[in-house]
């Protein structure tokens, strides 16, 4: 029996796992997909929000500020890329200026420092490519960017290094409340017993709560489409640029990413289908039109990919973090600023349990540090040469676009949480994420995965089990006959 079972291996579940790994607890994460960070965590704006726009007094406002304050240190411990690049909310008229002043006031109530309304001249200094129609901006010096799936992977990897178990491809089907414990039924395996269940199932968190008998909230998916540009376009802007927000969210943003790409998006389309991650022409058109209003001459010809994420929009309008029955904690409706708040959400969950009489004893051997798979790319030339001498696989560049070495790819396949698919390697190392989108390197990465996992190459998948890459060998019919 586990002390704690966390359902969902996104950034929220991962952060909670890592936080709880500080205590003497037997913990397991259940994830329905074939890898961690496969839901909203893998497809969002990758922003650590300043925390000025969540409604003062809300849980979102409280946890955004706390999370944003914690983020830099956590990223350092976990070896995750983070950059405090500051953000600008753009206004086009005096009316927008009033709205910006309102947001600033709200931000001050939230305890956010470093907020300032600036005029066109300052904006132009900060962002030379800003569009001519921008008149005002709310500048937030605390705004930052981070790699969201990198953060989730690192948090889960670090939790695993500290003893947490991760079970992938484990979809939860039923939850039975027994006396002082829960029985969790999963696909194709014996049911799992847990004293405490943390429901961090993202878009499915309402259904998971329902299995335990809590039907007090709903979650619906809100589609967000993005366009990602090559690193060559990464310096078009240096801050994260928003427009004045609407009811549907913070609108389209234009931002650099921590890896130097340029990201445009998201759209916001409410839906019902929790698996519909289709991008649409109208979405692209909207992103292109809105971002052109913000920034001049975005080099769209440098687009390397487009994708769609689903945010979990809760029915209460705020984060839903509660304990509807003893030992069962909901962490639901974690839409924006969920990534920013995630470290604070983890602390909040522990506090919630402790305030309700759960007693956890701290371990004295918890190791908060994790070495990044990307560490090689951040080394000096001398350090790299020493490592290549020790391990020649670091001298072999596999992904030419992002300069990823065989050593880094092997490390991603060998360290927690282990990459087993092409997409898994991509998210951990950036190999296949550049201009050629894996055209040159994916066959080679397939060979590496095949060799490391001891499986035939045609069994290597893109992501899920059904997402095969190769249908078989050539001449199979005559050679097997």
């Amino acid at each position: 029996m586990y002390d704690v079972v966390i359902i969902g291996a996104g950034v929220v579940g991962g952060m909670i796992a890592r936080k709880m790994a500080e205590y003497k607890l037997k913990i397991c994460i259940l994830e329905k997909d074939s890898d961690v960070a496969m839901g909203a965590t893998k497809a969002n704006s990758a922003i650590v929000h300043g925390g000025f726009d969540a409604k003062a007094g809300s849980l979102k406002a409280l946890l955004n500020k706390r999370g944003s304050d914690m983020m830099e240190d956590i990223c350092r411990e976990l070896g995750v890329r983070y950059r405090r690049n500051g953000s600008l909310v753009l206004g086009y008229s005096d009316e927008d200026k009033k709205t910006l002043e309102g947001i600033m006031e709200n931000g001050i109530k939230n305890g956010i420092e470093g907020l300032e309304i600036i005029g066109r001249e300052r904006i132009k200094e900060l962002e030379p490519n800003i569009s001519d129609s921008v008149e005002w901006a709310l500048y937030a010096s605390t705004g930052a960017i981070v790699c969201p799936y990198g953060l989730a992977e690192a948090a889960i990897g670090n939790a695993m290094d500290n003893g947490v178990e991760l079970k992938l491809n484990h979809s939860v089907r039923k939850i039975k409340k027994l006396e002082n414990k829960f029985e969790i039924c999963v696909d194709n395996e014996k049911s799992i017993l847990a004293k405490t269940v943390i429901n961090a199932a993202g878009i499915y968190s309402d259904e998971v709560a329902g299995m335990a008998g809590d039907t007090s909230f709903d979650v619906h998916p809100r589609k967000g489409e993005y366009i990602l540009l090559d690193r060559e376009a990464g310096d078009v802007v240096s801050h994260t640029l928003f427009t004045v927000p609407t009811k549907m969210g913070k609108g389209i943003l234009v931002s650099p990413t921590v890896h130097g790409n340029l990201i445009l998006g998201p759209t916001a389309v409410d839906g019902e289908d929790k698996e519909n991650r289709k991008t649409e022409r109208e979405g692209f058109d909207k992103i292109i039109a809105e971002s052109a209003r913000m920034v001049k001459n975005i080099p769209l010809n440098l687009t390397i990919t487009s994708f769609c994420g689903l945010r979990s929009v809760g029915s209460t309008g705020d984060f839903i973090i509660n304990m509807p029955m003893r030992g069962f904690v909901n962490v639901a409706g974690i839409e924006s600023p969920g990534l920013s708040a995630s470290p604070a959400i983890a602390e909040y969950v522990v506090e919630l349990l402790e305030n309700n009489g759960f007693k956890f004893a701290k371990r004295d051997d918890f190791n908060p540090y994790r070495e990044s798979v990307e560490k090689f790319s951040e080394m000096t030339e001398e350090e790299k040469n020493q490592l290549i001498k020790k391990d020649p696989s670091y001298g072999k560049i596999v992904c030419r676009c992002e300069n990823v070495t065989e050593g880094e790819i092997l490390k991603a396949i060998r360290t927690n949480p282990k990459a087993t698919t092409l997409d898994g390697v991509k998210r951990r190392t950036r190999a296949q994420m550049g201009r050629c989108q894996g055209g040159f390197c994916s066959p080679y990465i397939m060979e590496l995965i095949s060799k490391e996992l001891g499986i035939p190459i045609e069994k290597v998948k893109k992501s899920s089990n059904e997402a095969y890459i190769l249908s078989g060998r050539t001449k199979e019919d005559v050679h097997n006959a």
Partner: protein
Amino acid sequence: MRNVDLVIIGGGPAGMCAAVSAYNAGVENILILERDSHLGGILQQCIHNGFGLHRYKEELTGPEYAFRCEAELRKLPVEVQCNTMVTDISPEKMITAMSSERGIEKIGAKAIILAMGCRERSKGALNIPGTRPSGIFSAGTAQKYVNMMGYMPGKNVVILGSGDIGLIMARRMTLEGARVHAVCEVMPYSGGLARNIQQCLNDFDIPLYLSHTVTEIHGEHRIEGVTISEVDEKMKPIQGTERFIECDTLLLSVGLIPENELSRSAGLNLDSVTKGCFVDQNRETEIEGVFACGNVLHVHDLADFVSEEGEIAGESAALYIRNELKKSMHVPVVTDGKIRYSVPQIVTDNTKNIRLYYRAGAVFSDVKVNVLADGVVVNSVKKKKLVPGEMQYIELKANSVSENTAEIKVCIDKE
């Protein structure tokens, strides 16, 4: 740090032929840096025939062509270092290279020849709406799986783009037992060679849909089908023309882009049309002693022309190292738009005939291609047909221009 007279980056046909000609022109200390484990570049996976008709007067397959280039090279004491990736070139011609064997090393060169080749345009740039399943490959990646590794990417195939690699793969997949349901080309004409339409598509009754594109990708995990639509003159999909085609594989053959990341790191500007460096008739770039040739300079359709360009660059590098490269003028070569581009883009000496390579921007029939020097026709060639898929050249004859010439223009006139 090592010092070498001539470093050639890339061991495909351009690099190999450049090395041979540089050696024959007197450079003794030559180093080829190749990122792959073998010489030959992309030719190794181009197992189809059609190579070498100009150069060897017979029809060879890609590997045979590469074998011949390599055989010529291996007779000479040229140093070849495979499995080595160049990560940076400084404007002072200092090269940073990385390999398992030697780690990160600095190599100083008197002259450098850029011969890194090109890559395929990826799906990203197309922004096709829909899902992101597996089963979408660039044609060249599929070619590697089938021809080098012996694996099939799938069995029911749609191909987007009618570039030569796409056409070649349509036949190749068919021969290996797959069904190719359609080739869609967004333009009203094919981007590939006419012979490949015949022998790769028509021979196997594979339909080619011109002015058509893929407008949606279907399938959660593995691709399950595509929607194709006809497009108007502005290449916008026409509503009501959508058609669903079931498939488990989508191959993309939507163009090639020179791989000039290193050129940029050296501070070289790129031509917005060719996506390669600006060069003169010696294939010398804007940095003295740095030359470019082959597909990194502009995308060729024939390996034969790649080799020829490598030879020009190799010989020029030799002259440069001996300080004998002639430069008596600086005359830009421009085009009229109907001709999309011409290489070289600059003429710095005209004591010899110079071939101006060009590509048409659309299909033209029964036209004259003229070379003008400040508006005066200095050469003119009749062309029955010009298509964007076929690179052509026209001679700028010796002494056609002088240091007083302001501009050379390659243009199309009605006959």
